[in-house]
Every structure is written in C-alpha cells, then in structure tokens.
C-alpha cells in the first residue's frame, strides 16, 4: 500500500481530484484551507475573496499500479500550476 500526499492550490483542486478519479484510486481525503509558505511567499486565506484561496492537502491511499497512473495524470497539472506530491509506504493498522 502506498500513500500519496499532494499540496496544491485550492483553485486547481477540481482538476486534481478528476485526475485522481481517472487513475482509478479507490478514494481520497481533502483538507482545505491549508496555509504555509511556497516559492512565491506565504500562502494564506487572505485572498479568498478573489478566488485565490489557500492550498489543499490531498491524501490518497492506493496500490502501486495506481500510483503510476496518478503520476501520469497529475504530472501535467503539477508542471503547469505548481504544487508538490510525494509517495511513501503505508502500513495498514
């Protein structure tokens, strides 16, 4: 089992979730209103009124073949809009 962590802008969240669905992931968890600091400075909710919200943290647990499809579907989005994605091993309880 693998765990994929994605930090993307809330603005691109719909496109990211669509790519995760298309990769055949069994599900995902989304945490919105994620703030912090990125290459262009701090990320906050201050510009939420303009549609430029904070970031979202998406967590996906899936089998290794799905990770390959996720990589294929998400790479263009991450290359175009930016964001980070990491894969790690996960052990079920």
């Amino acid at each position, binding site marked *: 089992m693998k765990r994929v962590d994605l930090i993307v802008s809330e603005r691109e969240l719909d*496109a990211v979730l669509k790519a995760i669905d298309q990769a055949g992931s069994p599900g995902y968890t989304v945490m919105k209103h994620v703030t912090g600091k990125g290459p262009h*400075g701090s990320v906050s909710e201050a510009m939420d*009124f*303009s*549609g430029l919200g904070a970031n979202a943290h998406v967590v996906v647990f899936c089998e290794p073949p799905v990770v390959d499809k996720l990589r294929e579907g998400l790479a263009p*989005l991450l290359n*175009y809009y930016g964001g980070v994605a990491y894969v790690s091993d996960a052990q079920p309880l």
Partner: protein
Amino acid sequence: MDSSLVLQNLLTPPVLFFFLGVVAVLVGSDLEIPAPLPKLFSLYLLLAIGFKGGLELQHSGISGPVVPTIAAAIAMSLAVPLYSFVVLRVKLDSFNAAAVAATYGSISAVTFITAESFLDTQNIHHDGFMVAALALMESPAIIIGLLLVKLAAGQKRPDEGPMRWGAVLHEAFLNGSVYLLVGSLVIGFLTAANSPHSLEKMLPFTDKLFYGALSFFLLDMGIVAAQRLRDLRRAGTFLIGFSVLMPLFNAMLGIAIARALGLSPGDALLFMVLCASASYIAVPAAMRMTVPEANPSYYISTALGLTFPFNIIVGIPLYMALVNRFIPTAG
C-alpha cells in the same frame, strides 16, 4: 488640488476603516477577519452595486451617452494592457509583463464603489450605466493578457498543459464576480421595469446596508493591503513606480475621453476611476489559471498593496479636482 476634497474623502467611514486595517497590521494587532466573511461582503457589494446600477439604467434608458461611454470603456480595457505591456517589458519577462498589464487593464469594483460613495457624500449625481461600463471592463483585459503571452512568449511555452481557449473564455466572462455583477444588473433592470413594488423590499438590503458593508470590507482590504506591503519590496522600484504612475496616466486619458464624450462630472470621475484602477479580484484568479509562470506577488501586490490604496486615498480627490477643473457642469 483642493485640500478640503482630500479631507472629505479621508474622513469618510470606509476610508477610515481602511486605515484602521492597515494600522492593525503595522502595529501588530491580532485583528483578523475570518476568510469567508470578506468573500461574503465582496459578493454582497457586487450584488448591491449591480442591482442599483440596473435600476438606474432602467430609469435613465439606453440612450444619449450610454453606448459611446460603454464602447469607450471597453476600448480602454483593451488599450491599457497593450501599452502597459510595452512599458513593463523594459524590466519584466513576457509572462509577468502580460499578467501585470492585464491587471491594470481590468478594473477594481471596490475603488469604483468607494468613488460612488464619495460622489454621494458630495451630492454629485452619477448615472447607473457606469455600472454597466464597470461590468464590461472586467473581462477584455484578461483576453488581451493571454494574447500577449501567446504572441510574446509562444515559442518559450511548448507545453500549455490544461490551458484551453474555452476554459480561458469561461474564466474571463463567467468568473464569479463578473457573473454576479452582470446578473444583478440585469435583475435590477428587469425589477425596475416589471416589478417596481419589489424594489422597496430589496432596498433595505441593497441600499441601507451598503455603506456599512463597504466599510467592513475596506477594513479587511486594509489588512490585506498592509500584508502585501512586504511583497512590494520584492517587486522593486520599477513596479512600485509603475503602480502609481500608470494609474495617473490612465486617469489623464480617462478625463480626456470623458470630456470628449460630454460626460457629467460624476460620470467623468467614475470613468477616470475605471481607467485608473487595477483588478485584484477577477484578473489574479484568471492569471493564476492562464499564466501560472507569472509571479502572483507582482500582480497582486502592485494592484492591492499600492494602486488600490493610492486610488482611494489620493486618487479619488485628485481626479475630482481635475474633473472640477476640466469637465463643464451641465446648465
């Protein structure tokens, strides 16, 4: 410039609340407004200004200076990004120059609303059709910004990824703020024409709450603008100079056009404000989608951290003084 105009503008609740927000950040107060509230107030302001504009447009009718003024407003929103881009390319790459240029070609609805409030405190008449000009100036600059990127940086951009023209046009014309503003304008127009008795039921919401909501929203804008001041240092002296001088230049063009169109003093001020303001609601979101290579701290910080405060504190009374000097009053 008449100093009393500056004072009358500075001592209005919306501008004072804006200062209160700025000072809160500068002195390190923990004043914070939860994120959904500014969004709610911004939507409210767009709804109210659109609705009121629709009513007044129905009363004044679509004749006289209405069509030429709206056409001139759209022409300005197409022209401003083009010459801004030429200036910005002196120091910025194509992506950043196009994004900042689009920001200055579009408009700031809140600056417009603050200018309307200023005119109301001065008892100076202004027409509802200016709201239509406001609504129609939001989108063209987004399209021009993207065309500039395509033309100037096309070869450097082999992988446009998920960016498609359909999505860009959708973003330009159907983004939330433009959609709500235009929709409210149409609803106001239809209500005034067909259901005047409903107006009284709407007025407590769209009229009586308006000034307080504007003041509250400007309190938040003061906080956000002050937070952006740090980013301005990163933008550099060229962009700082641009964000003050370009609005002044655009305002000068605006007053020349207003005079040629024979606009009343109130409408001339609003036209100048439309030309001089920069978008920090519709355009940044669109630029993020269409030109992600551009640095948002350039186009947001200049529009919100400098041009917006400049216009509401200094610009509006300065433009009014110019209107008083160069625009003849009727009769």
